[in-house]
Structures are given as C-alpha cells and as structure tokens.
C-alpha cells in the first residue's frame, strides 16, 4: 500500500465513506462523521498508519482532505 492509499484508507475507515467522497469539498464539519470526535479518530488513524505524532497546532489546522496532505508532508510523509 502506498502512502496515498494509506491516507485515503484512514478517511474511508474513520468516516465510513467511499473513495468517491475523497475530494476537495471533504472538510472538517462538512459531513456528520467528521465532527470533533471524528477529527481525533482521524488523527489517531493517520498517526497509526504513518507512525507519526501530530502537534496540536497541526491538528487544529487539519481542516480538509486536501490540506491534510500538506500537513503530513511536514512529518516527512511523501505522497
């Protein structure tokens, strides 16, 4: 599994959505599952998948499927 597949998998499994839902409009609070609880579950899933630990500021900044890619790049994840 490459990093993009791992990244997508974390969203699909955490929020119970399909690959078709992964696009620019997928943002924090844009779907019911991505609320504050879902947010921390997503963070945990991504941290597990990439063996990283996000800073709190990055957790707050992690606002969408698209911008999240840039956040993880800060932790050395290459997409």
């Amino acid at each position, binding site marked *: 599994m490459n990093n993009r597949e791992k990244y997508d998998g974390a969203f699909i499994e955490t929020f119970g959505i399909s690959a078709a839902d992964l696009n620019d409009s997928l943002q924090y609070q844009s779907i019911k599952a991505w609320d504050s609880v879902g947010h*921390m579950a997503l963070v945990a899933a991504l941290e597990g998948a990439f063996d990283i630990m996000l800073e709190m500021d990055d957790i707050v900044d992690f606002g969408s499927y698209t911008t999240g890619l840039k956040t993880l790049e800060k932790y050395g994840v290459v997409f």
Partner: protein
Amino acid sequence: MTDTASDGGSVDLLCDLNRLTVHHKAACRLYGYYIDTLFGDREATSLAEVPYLPVRAFKTFELKSIADADVFKIMTSSGTTGAVSRIYLDKETSKLQSQKLIEVFSNAFSRSRFPMLVIDGQGTVTDRRQFSARTAAINGFSLFSRGREFALNDLFAVDVERVQAFVEANRGQRIFIFGFTFVVWQNFVAQLKRMNVRLDLSNSFLLHGGGWKKLADQNISNERFKAEVQEWTGCKDVRNYYGMVEQTGTIFMECEHGNLHAAVGSDVIIRDPATFAVLPHGAEGLIQVFSNIQKSYPGHSLLTEDVGHTLDGESCACGRKGTIVKIAGRLKKAEIRGCSDAYNS
C-alpha cells in the same frame, strides 16, 4: 496584567476589545442598537468602560456578526428552564478558540498529548441531547488526548476493570484525567471510597470544571477535594478551571498555588449586582469576563450570572500575572443552568 480591578488592564487587550466593539456594532445590528442605547459611542479607556452584554442575551436573541452562509458551528448551552444560549461560530473564531485552549493548557501542563481518562460515561458524548455542555467540554479537551477511555459505565458507576486496564496499557506515560467537578466527586472518588478501591494514577494530572455548587452545598472545599482525589487515585496534580460556553477556549486555569488566573488576552472585573459599579479586588459581586478572540459573535465582554471576587494576579507566587478570580457561586435570582448539574444521581 491588571494592577487593580479598576484600572485599564493591559493596553493591548483594551485595544483589541475596542476594535471588537466597533466590529460587532457594524456587523451585528441588534448588538449595535443595544450598545448605542446603553453605552453611547465613545471608545473605552479602561475595562470598566468597555460595553458589555449580559450572558443571557444569547438565550433571548440571535447575536451573530457573520453571514448565515459563514456559520460553521452553533454551540448551545441548555438551561433547565428551557432557554438555550446559541453561540454562532465561523471557521476563524472556532480555530481561535482551539488555539486559545491549546495556549492555556500547554502553559499549565505541556504541549504534549496524553492518554486521556474521561470521568464520565461514553453515553455522555453519544447522547448529545442530554449533556450538551459536558459533551462539548469532553470533546474539546480531547484535543490533548492520544487515546481516550471512559471511566464510568452507562449507569455512571466506576468500571474499575476498564480503568485498571487503561492504567496498565499506559504505564510509563502521564495520564490526563478530565471530568466535571461534581461527577468526579460523586461518581468516581466517592464510589472508589465506598468500594475501598485505590487506583494507581500517581503519574497523572486531573483537570476538572463545571462548577462547585453541588460540592459547596455538601461543604466540600477545594482542599478536601484534592486530598480525597489523591487518596483514592494517587493523582497529586489536581486543577480546576472556570469557563463558559459563551467564551469557549478562554478559560481561567487553576495554577499550582490554587488560583484561577485570567489567560493572556482575557481579564475579569467585578460589578456591584445592584448598581453595576465596578468593585475593587476583594469585594464580592457579579463577574464580568473579557476575551479578545470572539469575532463571529459579540461575546468579548460579558456580564455573567456568577458571583465572586478578584485578586491581583501578581500576588500569586506562580508567576502568572493574569487577574485571579475566586468564584463564590451563582447569583441567587439567576436561572439555574444545566451544564454538569444536569445529571442528578
């Protein structure tokens, strides 16, 4: 950074508050009308002159300074008599709240995230109709979690096995315990005592909030609370906080010397409940809170229904300069709000 209760407070804060008053007057018609009528149009030269809203205004009126399309989240605080505060957030203010909370939390503890033991039932966060303020606080503070477990079962009894398994699984790591003051006391500490079960949470810190009213009614002081928490859980670092849904993020955090300090970018003064005159440090009256992050709704200067007094922040040995607030309780005539008191055993 206030020297006395009646001075201007920090100059930066006063500038921010004046800017927010102008912003909200332009962006929220109802607020502008109210402020112009009651306070006039002049710029405040001290905290005492900053126009304020009574917190209950958010129950009666839709007060927002953003377009409907920009409403990102509406936070509510349920009252037992049915009136509900509605706080309108856009993305910017929501993020500022989280950033402020991170600033205050990391100033008291550290920038790390911790295994989090919530002294509540899982049902509290899944059944949102019942415990909106408790749910919001638990989920808000979960920002500091790395793994989360609930200490109570659905009947609000301690699940000792689950808690001990959590302690074992996280041995060697500092655990962040979070709960509402009354729930921590009644459903955790008192139950452990009744069962004669001592937990090994020596490597942990406890943060609790939501009000002392029920404990004060039972004559339980902060000192006794801390002593009993330590006796039955081993936790030595016990901190209270004071905050409200109308100023989420901007909380008063108890320092290691037992004082609740205003955070940077916030302050507190006391007003006489009859005349609304500002009172000096030490005198009891209504608590008015200030915060500089409320852009989407006019909540930067609020007269609460809580009673207490202030002390000079510099008088505390912890080194934090923020004004100290001592909470005595809720104003007698005020509507009793739900919050953590919504659950009765």
